[in-house]
């Protein structure tokens, strides 16, 4: 499998539901998606896109969609991805008063899901391949 997409955004089931490379994590918080990506990066996987995509502080954006490229034969740790990962985890330690996804009005949460999907649509197409259209 060349690349994988890890996400907690249910909208990705539309068109990519059966795609093995797209892993939709049920009821997961954005931070859980970062942890899943961390374990892959520690095994040599590389980020295709910057994990802090979208001009939001991650503490306010309930969804995260991360695309990672499989390690080459040489394996070994990709330093750039590791640095990006550490920066992203650091940015996740937001202020305790930040709005939790649970408190968010439904329409807002669905807007975030839609925005998350549209921001990452192209990168998922390019690295995972064409799913169905939105």
């Amino acid at each position, binding site marked *: 499998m060349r690349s994988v997409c890890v996400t907690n955004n249910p909208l990705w089931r539309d068109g990519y539901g059966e795609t093995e490379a797209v892993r939709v994590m049920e009821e997961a918080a954005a931070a859980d998606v970062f942890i899943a990506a961390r*374990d892959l990066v520690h095994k040599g996987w590389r980020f295709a896109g910057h994990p802090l995509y979208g001009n939001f502080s991650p503490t306010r954006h309930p969804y995260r969609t991360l695309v990672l490229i499989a390690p080459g034969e040489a394996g070994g740790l990709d330093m750039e991805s590791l640095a990006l990962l550490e920066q992203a985890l650091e940015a996740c330690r937001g202020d305790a008063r930040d709005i939790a996804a649970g408190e968010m009005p439904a329409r807002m949460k669905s807007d975030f899901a839609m925005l998350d999907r549209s921001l990452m649509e192209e990168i998922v197409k390019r690295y995972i391949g064409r799913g169905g259209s939105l």
Partner: protein
Amino acid sequence: MKPYRIVHYLNQFFGGVGGEEKADIKPESREGAVGPGVAFKAALKGEAEIVGTVICGDGYFAENMEKATGEILALIAAFKADAVITGPAFNAGRYGAACGAVADAVRAKLDLPALSGMYEENPGVDLYRKSVVIVPTSDNARGIKDAVPAMSRLILKMLSGETLGSAAEEGYMERGIRVNCFHHRPGAERAVEMLLSKLRGEPFATEYPMPNFDRVPIAPALKDIKNATIALLTDGGIVPKGNPDRIESSSATRYGTYSFAGIDSATDKLYATAHGGYDPTYANHDPNRVLPLDVMRDLEREGAFGKLYETWYSTVGNGTSVAMARKFGEEMGQALKAAGVDAVILTST
């Protein structure tokens, strides 16, 4: 207007109780000023006076931080203090950290103005510069005659309710807190101005300094390995099962001191990982994958090196603050050196 009531915090040495042998004394208080406190009387010019002194052993404070802080705050409150001065601690590491912690707790919990004084290299500076006003002092007690006037002027200003100016203007340690301000000219003009100075090789002041790291001189190589005592340390988070010292899984504020006596391998029966920064399954399955005790014992038996030092230290290197890591390193280094250890192996994840 009656003078403000100030309580002074000192350690066992400056409080006149004793030296290192008295480092474990519990917090106690004295009426009026003690030791360096007397020097403050003149500098406070009658506007404030030291009504009481609270003394605590550096050892007792370091080992029981929460408990000691609570007890000290109670003693301070008993004096109905208006403000608290801690130190000056000069370059004494544990005393500096205690001074910072007490001043921080007074500000946060008693909502009273508090300040301290210490040498810039003191670990207490980096630990508390963001939340406590710290006046720079020389690295030894001879600097008391400069420290006291500076600390007095600042505590009186804080008592008067005036907000302090920047670190440079008021003479306290830069606290590393970013605050907004308005310049005379827009950012774009400042940028072009700065570029011109940079192109002409003229000095300029960046408005946002990048974080940087300093180097340390290289220790000489180990000469006689066959008789060398080597210590094994880790910040990969391996701790005895159950994490007895409750070392935090990230931003650790403490390290554990344990013993290898009678143990030949870091098995999953004895050890586990407390580190929150990586998938723990592999380390928990075989802790030797982070703390190579099995191989160290083999090599020790085969005489590849003299002796594995029985005491070992462990912490969690995951988002640990630079100041905290420095404090751990200093304490471990001094203890290992004192115990005659010749070299160290540190494993990280």
